[in-house]
């Protein structure tokens, strides 16, 4: 599905071409299909990569970077041929791995500067840039401590700094908020938003945490059992298949409900007690008010319903389960 290109504030224009375009990517682990004919076309912006454990998210990310070898599949990443130009791709991608990986013995600032040097930044420039990025990532004076002594949250921030130090146009973040406290998590999401909105970076955000995706992502890919189950913008996904209203009433709810049913509306009751009226557009709202008046109930809240990301996720995952 082709997504519309979003415009960013501050006149940073996204590229019109795809960041990732994959076709038929298949990865087998001893016969098990970790990725099964995955085809994607992701454009600039922040893309959430969702899926239950073992759905193939990390395998897809490692495939993009050539850290695992795929049996099938071709495509482009940042207009570079994948997998033939994987080294050039690594040059232009910042990767935050899910694994707790670090170079033992280095201090935080050395670890970031080292990654800068490996990405081609000259020695002094790499160190200067490492200081700048560790400040941006709020690592503070901890950067002078050995990474082995870092907490999980600090290591996440350090990995984020390492991913960012060479100023890549595309970031792949695998579970970036894992191990962060609520404040730090919010700060991390703010940084991600800043990078995408103000600096034109494209970001692939793999996570289990649905509120994180809702907070920052423009589009979402849901993987389950190695296949792409859902791929669309959050805006499109949030729209229900039929126009639907959520109504919260005060008074005789049963009378209001039976009157709606008599009028031919399909109504369900949600867990929080609100009524979900399916197949009603906003221009038919006046009839709802009239029914409420006739049944002596008052409407406390009335709003167009949206699919929640949780619903979308669970539907996609349950549809992939073998029966």
């Amino acid at each position, binding site marked *: 599905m082709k997504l519309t290109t979003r415009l960013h504030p501050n006149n940073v224009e996204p590229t019109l071409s795809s960041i990732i375009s994959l076709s038929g990517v298949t990865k087998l682990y001893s016969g098990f299909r970790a990725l099964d004919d995955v085809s994607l076309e992701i454009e600039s912006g922040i893309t959430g990569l969702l899926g239950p454990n073992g759905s193939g998210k990390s395998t897809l990310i490692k495939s993009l970077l050539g850290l695992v*070898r795929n049996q099938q599949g071709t495509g482009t990443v940042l207009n570079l041929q994948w997998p033939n130009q994987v080294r050039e791709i*690594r040059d232009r991608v910042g990767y935050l791995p899910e694994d707790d990986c*670090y170079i033992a013995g280095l201090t935080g600032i050395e670890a970031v500067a080292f990654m800068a040097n490996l990405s081609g930044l000259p020695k002094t420039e790499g160190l200067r840039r490492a200081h700048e990025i560790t400040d941006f990532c709020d690592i503070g004076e901890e950067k002078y401590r050995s990474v082995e002594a870092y907490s999980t949250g600090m290591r996440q921030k350090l990995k984020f700094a390492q991913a960012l130090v060479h100023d890549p146009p595309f970031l792949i973040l695998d579970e970036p908020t894992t191990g962060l406290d609520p404040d730090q998590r919010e700060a991390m999401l703010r*940084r991600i938003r800043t990078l995408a909105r103000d600096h034109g970076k494209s970001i692939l955000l793999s996570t289990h945490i649905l509120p994180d995706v809702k907070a920052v992502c423009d589009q979402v890919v849901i993987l389950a059992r190695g296949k792409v189950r859902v791929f669309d913008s959050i805006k499109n996904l949030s729209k229900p298949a039929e126009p639907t209203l959520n109504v919260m009433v005060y008074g005789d709810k049963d009378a209001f409900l039976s009157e709606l049913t008599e009028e031919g509306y399909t109504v369900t009751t949600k867990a929080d007690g609100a009524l979900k009226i399916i197949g009603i557009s906003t221009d038919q709202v006046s009839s709802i008010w009239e029914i409420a008046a006739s049944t002596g109930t008052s409407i406390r809240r009335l709003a167009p319903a949206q699919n929640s990301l949780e619903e979308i996720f669970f539907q996609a995952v349950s549809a992939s389960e073998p029966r």
Partner: protein
Amino acid sequence: MPVHDLGYRNWGGKRNHHLIRPLFVARSGITLIWRRRMLKLLLLVAWLPIAIPAIGIFCFEQGLTDESYRRFIVQTLRGPMERPDLAMQMLEDPVSIRHEVWSALILGFFRVPQLYSMVLLIGLIAPLLISYDLRSKAYLQYFSRPLSTNEYIVGKSAVIWFFLGMITTLPGLVVYLLGVLLSPELSVVSTTWDIPLRILMASVALIIPTTALAISYSACTVENRYASFAWFATWIMGSVAYQILTNIPRMGRGRRNAIDVDTERWLLVSPYHTLGKVETWIFGLDTGESSVWPAVFILIAISVIGTLFVRSRLIARLSV
């Protein structure tokens, strides 16, 4: 929070060529190892034996004009250095054996103190290089950058090359320089000019295969102590096996026939003696009857197979 929070700023400078990147891998490894006090001490101790060949060369040069020094050199050549032929020539025409004596002294320096230092030094540092990266999954950090497996191997090997150069090549060259400076006249250079080249060649013969062997052990396991154990076991067991294989026939034939035992037949079982054969040949002092080429072939095979093994281990990690 820094005093001046600059926020995020884009970077658009010129990047280094990718061939330079292994140097950063090497520099990082050297920096990490340099922080270990034990290794600094070992490096210091490894330089102390430099005095032995330097004093030997000084005594030899003095012995050309001074009878007491000459007697000392003759006794040394007959005794510890086991070269009675040179001792005879020292009495007849000492200038003609200058090259051989200098080479023998420097070779002795390479063969005994520096080889032991090398075994100890590599045993302490090499397992830290790749097995640590495998255990801490740091290889994901390396290979998410535009770094090939070959560049990674070169970078890691360069750490060992650096430290081995520090305890073999550099002191060897310093010994030569000291020898020249302690000689009565600088004309000695005209007869010994090739010794620095031989030192470099002997260093290469020592450094390349031992590094390949050490990093292949390091790549075998995520437990660096196993890699250390395998490294020391290779040297100790090899030497023990060589001693047993060469001494048992001697004991069987009795002391009178000991000279008939072919000690070179079994030297390939011991890395120490294989290296010794090649280094002796490089310094032009090989008096053995057997060819040096099997030993050279073994060292080349260790270098190639060791490097290919490391490469395959890394690729296997990235090709799961």
